[in-house]
């Protein structure tokens, strides 16, 4: 079955990336340490009143994950450039989009773990209470992460192979992520506040639409950009 072969390719690439990360550790811990420092700095910028911190918490957490994520997305393809690994990867049989899916999957795990740690630290530092609607909040976190990671992985594939990659990735990524950030921040804030205006549902639908559109678009376009 063709789709089972593709699925095995996707898993193999994701597994390869996660194994590399697990064995080196330095990369991931660096990204996490960066995220925690950003959280602390946000605390200095917005605190120390508890009410102000609590109000800003969802925005701060999403921005922190975005900033730390940019480091991760650049690394994701940078490791392929060492000793020409990317050429070998392209020589293997199978569709190009499977490479993208594999990278995407690994980055999802990576950013998912990062997000959990950032949230854990954020709950403590920003004195956030866990709301009753926490399953919906988990859904918002998942959808926001998918939107962030799909565009991040795609633009990372280009930026990491250009000159000035550190500057280029944020320039490309930040404006594109405006809808994800707005929707994820507003939905999380609404849910943290008990969603009195019942607005979270609309934002979740927007997130879902964004994710579907850009998952399809990036998978379609990846073949063209990885050949070059």
């Amino acid at each position, binding site marked *: 079955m063709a789709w089972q072969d593709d699925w095995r390719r996707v898993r193999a690439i994701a597994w390869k990336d996660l194994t590399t990360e697990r064995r080196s550790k330095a990369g991931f811990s660096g990204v996490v340490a960066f995220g925690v420092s950003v959280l602390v700095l946000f605390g200095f910028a917005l605190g120390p009143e508890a009410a102000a911190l609590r109000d800003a918490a969802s925005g701060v957490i999403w921005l922190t994950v975005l900033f730390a994520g940019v480091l991760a997305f650049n690394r994701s393809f940078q490791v392929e450039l060492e000793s020409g690994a990317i050429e070998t990867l392209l020589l293997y049989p199978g569709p190009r989009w499977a490479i993208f899916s594999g990278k995407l999957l690994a980055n999802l795990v990576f950013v998912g773990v990062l997000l959990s740690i950032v949230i854990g630290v954020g709950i403590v530092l920003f004195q956030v209470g866990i709301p009753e609607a926490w399953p919906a909040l988990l859904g918002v976190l998942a959808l926001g992460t998918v939107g962030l990671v799909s565009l991040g992985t795609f633009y990372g594939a280009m930026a990491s192979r250009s000159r000035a990659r550190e500057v280029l990735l944020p*320039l490309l990524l930040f404006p594109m992520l405006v809808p994800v950030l*707005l929707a994820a921040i507003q939905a999380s804030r609404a849910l943290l506040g008990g969603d009195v205006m019942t607005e979270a549902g609309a934002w979740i639908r*927007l997130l879902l639409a964004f994710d579907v559109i850009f998952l399809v678009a990036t998978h379609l376009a990846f073949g063209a950009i990885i050949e070059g």
Partner: protein
Amino acid sequence: MHSIAHADPIATPSARWAWFGIFALLFLVFAQVTAVMISVPDRDMGHLQKIMYVHVPAAWTTFLAFFVVAICSLRVLFRGGERDDLLAASAAEVGAVFNALTLALGMMWGRPTWGVWWTWDARLTSTLVLLLIFIGYLSLRAFVDDPERRATWSAAVGVLGAINVPIVYMSVRWWRTLHQVQSAPSTLDPAYTLGLRLNAFAFLFVLIFLIRRRYEAAALLRAAEHADDARALGGR
């Protein structure tokens, strides 16, 4: 790819286009003067209303330029081709300038009318995000050296950006809205329609002329690069 070394005949600067440029400039002056002369001071805004004759056409041409970028990018992705790539790049550069102009003029109007230079309203914010997307697109082009890679990569960025513009607009609109209903000839007092129409055409002509000139320059530059490559490979 190599044949363009002898310069794209379509891209060669020509006297016809120089005349078109002079015409566009004169028409712009004519349209501005006419619009300012025939429009009476607005009941609420007074003479401030006249910013509309530059602000609104600039906004329209920005979106038109972005549309050209999107179409050319799609063509690059599906068929490849140097001309579409250069045309997309030219339209993006000119579009970014008109985009910045739209924002600057809007601020000049907003300060006396709304009392603030900036407000986080849907139309303003999404126009600003559009400018940032243009800037990302142009930086990608600046940071990638290989021409073919630059063509496909920027085409992908152009297409994704174009898909995102309506989503950005919708998300910011949900976030908050204050901007008055968009100006179009049908929403205007008839006293202002002719001036707006004339200036819309004037800006369209200027846009076409600027994109054309930018395209000629880009094509010449590319032809020089091809000639260099050919020489390096021991050709003519």
